């Protein structure tokens, strides 16, 4: 069965509500401004209305209520809406949810999911385009999911709602909504915390997540056809846990690493991957690591300015050519 990313989300939400009466939606605007995708929520909203809570514009309160309900035995998913609004809820996400299990000495856990429609979406401008995965990566106790494909959107959301026992930030991306994947009935998901080799290669590893996965795949195609370079694409899938081993094993095979990531360059996801390589994989490297990231500049509104900053297929190709010494 072929599904889109947006369908995968809606299907996971629907099936989770159906499977476990403890699952609770706090807010219901998971599809953001996408009028077409919003229709996918209709069956849910009508069938499970008593487990869908109306949400005022109170991100901090909603996040906290999600945490409290989770501590008290429910399995809520809180709709944060545009990912940038998680800053409104930061005190609760970072300094309550993440600490509950540890501070209580393991007595209480808080299996709450924060759903964010994050990333540079086109015209979002400085206040609506954040990618918070690296910032949140500084917060032990949180799980951070960054699906880059429709099947992972489905599997990871279902895992967060039905299985996870910890607070989870689910970072969705509206530019992925139309991406499709084959969903094999009865198939097992790759374990959470394991990166996925989306394409094998010999010359260079491109490490990606979320929106950069599809762009890395396109770059790998072009590298093969135009430049005869064989690129391996590693899809991290989750930022916490972070699968160091798969990254190191891939670079052990290829000897070169380009990290394609939508965070800002400084202190972004690419920095951590590069640091892992500098600390644990130095001997594997035949060339300096290269980060292909968003420059350290707020996201401007204008299309020409935004285009200058984003991580495109072309920029990934250029990064790879550079580490290949071309």
């Amino acid at each position, binding site marked *: 069965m072929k599904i889109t990313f947006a369908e995968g989300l809606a299907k996971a939400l629907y099936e989770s509500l159906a499977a476990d009466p403890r699952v609770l939606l706090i807010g219901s605007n998971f599809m953001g401004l996408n*009028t077409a995708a919003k229709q996918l929520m209709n069956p849910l909203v009508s069938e499970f209305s008593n487990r869908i809570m109306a949400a005022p514009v109170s991100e901090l309160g909603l996040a906290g209520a999600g945490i409290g309900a989770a501590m008290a035995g429910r399995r809520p998913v809180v709709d944060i809406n545009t990912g940038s609004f998680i800053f*409104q809820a930061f005190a609760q996400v970072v300094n309550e949810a993440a600490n509950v299990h540890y501070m209580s000495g393991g007595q209480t856990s808080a299996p709450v999911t924060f759903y964010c429609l994050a990333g540079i979406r086109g015209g979002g*401008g400085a*206040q609506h385009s954040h990618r918070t995965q690296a910032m949140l990566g500084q917060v032990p106790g949180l799980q951070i999911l960054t699906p880059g494909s429709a099947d992972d959107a489905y599997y990871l959301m279902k895992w967060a709602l039905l299985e996870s026992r910890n607070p989870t930030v689910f970072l969705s991306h509206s530019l992925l909504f139309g991406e499709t994947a084959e969903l094999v009935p009865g198939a097992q998901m790759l374990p959470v915390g394991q990166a996925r080799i989306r394409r094998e290669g010999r010359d260079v590893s491109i490490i990606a997540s979320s929106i950069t996965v599809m762009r890395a795949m396109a770059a790998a195609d072009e590298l093969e056809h135009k430049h005869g370079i064989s690129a391996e694409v590693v899809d991290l899938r989750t930022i916490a846990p972070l699968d160091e081993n798969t990254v190191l094993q891939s670079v052990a095979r290829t000897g070169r690493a380009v990290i394609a990531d939508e965070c800002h360059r400084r202190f972004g996801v690419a920095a951590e991957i590069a640091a892992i390589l500098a600390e644990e994989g130095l001997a594997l490297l035949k060339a300096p690591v290269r980060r292909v990231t968003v420059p350290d*500049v707020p996201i401007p*509104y*204008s299309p020409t*300015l935004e285009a200058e900053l984003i991580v495109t297929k072309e920029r990934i190709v250029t990064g790879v050519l550079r580490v290949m010494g071309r």
Partner: protein
Amino acid sequence: MIMSTAATEPLGRMAAMLRIRRFEEQCIRLAQAGQFRGHYHIYIGQEATAVAACAALVAEDFVFTTWRNHGHMLARGAAPERMLAEILGKAGGYAGGKSGTLHLAVRDLGILSTSALVGGTLPLATGAALACKQRGSGITVCFFGDAALEEGALYEAMILASLWQVPILFVCENNTMPPGQRARGQSPSSRLPANRLADIPEALRVTSEEVDGADADALNECLARLAAQVRSSGGPRYVEVHSGRWPGNFLSWPDLPGGEWQIAWAFGQQSDHADLAAWLEQSDPLNRYLRKLVAAGTLDRAQAEAMDERARAEMAGAVRFALDSPYPPPDEAYQHVYAQGGQAR
């Protein structure tokens, strides 16, 4: 240039409202023609509020607004061509294309920076009012929508404004449902559990009142009086303006149901869009004010049409300017991350 003076006279107010209406219609046309992307917000039906509030201000005052800022910008004297260029992300815009519609700002008009985060604007405005108090002159007007009352930021800002007694006029533009049109027991805003929103600032010792957003004269009296009180007392005031939401705003993406506004609608002709007709009758400050001025003999149809012609021509020129303005060169993306001077190397 701050245009507020002319707008203290009835004809000036009418013209100012009309300019906003014609601007917004062009904005919708440009969006629907794919000339810009992203979501945007339209001020149709709330024009009288911006015009009345800005008429009460002087040059040194500050104005804070939100994503729904076009009307406030125009009423304060912003140039429509530079606004539209900005909305299109063009080099000729006020921020050279960096802000787009959501963050339109004109420092020279005291509109320092515009937040598009619900509630976000209130603490900023309170700080600007603190600056007014420290320098010993000027006041700050802060516009926001009713959903801001759902954000903790509003409460913290109001606490500070009240505690510090800074000269700020909070203008809550409630475009949800005017009291008369609400079902019994229904919330007075989108989702806030309250019987009366103005009880909230009152509980924090900010004197509050309510006014009808479709009544331009009432608004003018009210906002002039409150601004004067803020100016003389140095402390905060709060007003809730009730507007009947314009039918074009019921959708996620603004539309022009029933087409552009027509002068003829104020002269007995009916719009054939039923929702719009009811709204024009009860809730449209422009339509109601024009009818009132005509009834009072202040304006006749020919004069109204001439006024409209000027507004349309101005906005058509603004559209041309915006379309002709080039996109900024890519390198411009790296400018203005940090202000220069006194700066880190």
